[in-house]
């Protein structure tokens, strides 16, 4: 079964608005990563946040991590039509976890930004 679960499954907003996507996971993690996928092919890495970090920024992206709630959120500010894509979270288990070293992905959130 998938470790991460994204919420919502689909999100539609107007250009300029902010988009927030959430990810929940079940077991302990070493780090959590967010990826973007256009047109159902290769994924592009957006940001990695380690288990001892609470927040990270990269340009218009802001990621938070709450290990007590086993959840993360990705915020895209001032969205653009070009941000339209699917967004996935991926968790890497700790060294003694069954998912050690490998990323397990959720089903993703499909974001549509209308011009």
């Amino acid at each position, binding site marked *: 079964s*998938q470790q991460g679960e994204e919420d919502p499954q689909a999100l539609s907003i107007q250009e300029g608005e902010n988009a927030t996507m959430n990810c929940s996971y079940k077991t302990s993690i*070493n*780090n959590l*990563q967010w*990826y973007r996928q256009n047109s*159902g*092919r*290769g*994924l*592009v*890495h957006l940001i*990695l946040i380690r288990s001892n970090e609470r927040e990270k920024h990269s340009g218009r992206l802001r990621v938070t991590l709450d290990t007590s709630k086993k959840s993360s959120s990705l915020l895209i500010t001032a969205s653009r039509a070009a941000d339209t894509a699917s967004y*996935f979270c*991926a968790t*890497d288990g700790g060294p003694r976890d*069954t998912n*050690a*070293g*490998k*990323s*397990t*992905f*959720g*089903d*993703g959130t499909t974001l549509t930004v209308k011009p």
Partner: protein
Amino acid sequence: GAGVSQSPSNKVTEKGKDVELRCDPISGHTALYWYRQSLGQGLEFLIYFQGNSAPDKSGLPSDRFSAERTGGSVSTLTIQRTQQEDSAVYLCASSLESYTEAFFGQGTRLTVV
């Protein structure tokens, strides 16, 4: 090349045939992953290679699936006696080491008819 390269981009095969999918990771990356993605779904982990360690094959769906990584570089995913449910995009990724950013190839779209 600078990125992860997968070949072929698309493969159509008849049910029952064997197929081989190739992945050329980024040079120097010790970790290599194979995932499968059905239409509109998330990524399903298949297999993970890390350096010279025994691969983690826990995600392979059946014994018809196997993968090799020769010389710590190129990897081949083989599906024997393909079935229609094997139709999906097969994605390969590599990373410098475990727990770091993974770089994905563009995938191989496999269609079993």
